[in-house]
């Protein structure tokens, strides 16, 4: 079990992570979602002991993670910026990982280089943004660390590379189950891989649930304004929009079939809400207010 107990991360007066409590059972794939500046990277930095929280602790299997050699050995945190020196060659970066990581799989690293068509002789500085991300994915997956954290590891990758990345992530997870946390903005293309989803907003955990539980959770209801309003009463409203006498509201939660049938008889139409839309609605209060 990985636990965050009241973790707060601050930069001067800015609170990036605000008293976060989170329990993550191990050997699952988690998706961490949140808008820019919502505190994802700060949260992950604290989780990986890259940054000591101002308050609170991170526990891995009951022991404090910060500066704990055993926990550190089992943690791989791949940041979008990569913690490599520009003058390093890909090959030497992998070599160093092999020296230092007891769980490193050199053969698998070579296989991944091959899959991504990366040239191991190249220097990091000579790689494109997408290729750097691929090096990050190679380092992250071949480390086979019990806690693997990939922070926006798809940046700059084209659609083909991203597909290869997701495929390898799943295949390697199936072969070597471990805790994998993936932060992303591209919800729709990876959501199927996540067992659970964590949504962050302004430094707090907005939601932590099974991914499947979010599918079909939101509903849009459209129809004559007053009937829609009457129907929406008693439901959590995520967003609304009006045009003339027509009103559309987005409701949180699952409606039972009888309720939908009744609504349809009243001339309302119901539409499901995709994960991406649900995420946008949950994290965009400001957008709604300003509209």
């Amino acid at each position: 079990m990985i636990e965050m107990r009241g973790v707060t991360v601050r930069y001067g007066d800015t609170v990036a992570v605000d008293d976060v409590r989170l329990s993550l059972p191990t050997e699952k794939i988690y998706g961490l979602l949140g808008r820019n500046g919502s505190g994802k990277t700060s949260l992950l930095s604290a989780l990986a002991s890259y940054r000591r929280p101002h308050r609170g602790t991170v526990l891995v299997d009951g022991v404090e993670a910060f500066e704990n050699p055993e926990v550190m050995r089992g943690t791989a945190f791949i940041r979008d910026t990569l913690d490599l020196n520009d003058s390093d060659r890909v090959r030497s970066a992998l070599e160093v990982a092999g020296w230092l990581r007891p769980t490193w799989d050199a053969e698998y690293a070579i296989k991944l280089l091959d899959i991504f068509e990366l040239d191991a002789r190249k220097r990091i500085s000579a790689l494109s943004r997408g290729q750097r991300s691929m090096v990050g994915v190679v380092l992250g997956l071949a480390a086979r660390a019990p806690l693997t954290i990939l922070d926006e590891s798809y940046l700059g990758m084209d659609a083909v590379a991203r597909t290869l990345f997701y495929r390898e992530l799943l295949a390697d997870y199936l072969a070597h189950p471990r805790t994998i946390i993936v932060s992303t903005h591209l919800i729709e293309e990876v959501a199927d891989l996540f067992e659970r989803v964590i949504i962050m907003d302004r430094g707090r955990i907005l939601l932590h649930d099974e991914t499947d539980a979010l599918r079909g959770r939101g509903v849009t209801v459209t129809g004559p304004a007053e009937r829609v309003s009457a129907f929406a009463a008693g439901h959590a409203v995520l967003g609304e929009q009006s045009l003339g006498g027509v009103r559309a509201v987005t409701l949180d939660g699952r409606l039972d079939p009888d309720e939908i049938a009744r609504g349809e008889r009243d001339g309302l139409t119901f539409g499901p809400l995709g994960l991406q839309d649900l995420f946008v609605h949950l994290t965009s209060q400001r957008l709604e207010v300003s509209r």
Partner: protein
Amino acid sequence: MSVVASLFRLWRPMILWFAAILVTIEVVAVAAISTAGPVRFSFWLVVAGSAAKYWPLVAGILLVSMYLRTFVANGRTRHEFLRGLALFAGSVALVFPAVVVVGHAVESLVLGLADHRAGSYPVFRFGDAAAEYLHVLPAAAGFITSGILITAGFYRFRPWIGVLLIAPGALPALAGDGLIKIDDSGELIARLPYAIALTLTAAAVVLGCVATHRLLRDVAIKRSTT
């Protein structure tokens, strides 16, 4: 592999290249000087003597700025890195002065065999080897400590605080180099009685190590080199 072993593996090419360049300069320069008659000073003590300060300084700077995150990113704690760093820096501070002394011995011997030593040349004597070594060691130790400490200051704080910390950070280097040195004519100099000068330098180095530990033991791992 341990942190210190990895550091030596990573630095092997840099160490070998630097040694090759140093030896090449020595051979070419001494050969050139010899054509003008007997050699009056030790070129090796000039070149390797200052290299024994500046190479450790640069090494100290790079060790923190480039390698801390390499090791943390590969699953080592800051404390493990700091231990490896101390072993590596200690080895550099101990071995480089020995190289200076051995090089001086070789230069003296070769020039002696060729009968190319002028009267003012500092002839190497085995009985003086230890004293010579102990006059190079403090500066080497002081400079690598300062390199590491000043960089740690910049790593931990904003640049302007880092700049302010340069002055105290330079203390080990200033103590080592200012109190005890060896000049190009081979004269061993200690500004205070040697034992006191050495104690002061050692104290500055130890303080530098403690300060480095304080600065880096829970530092946030930066995204970029500086």
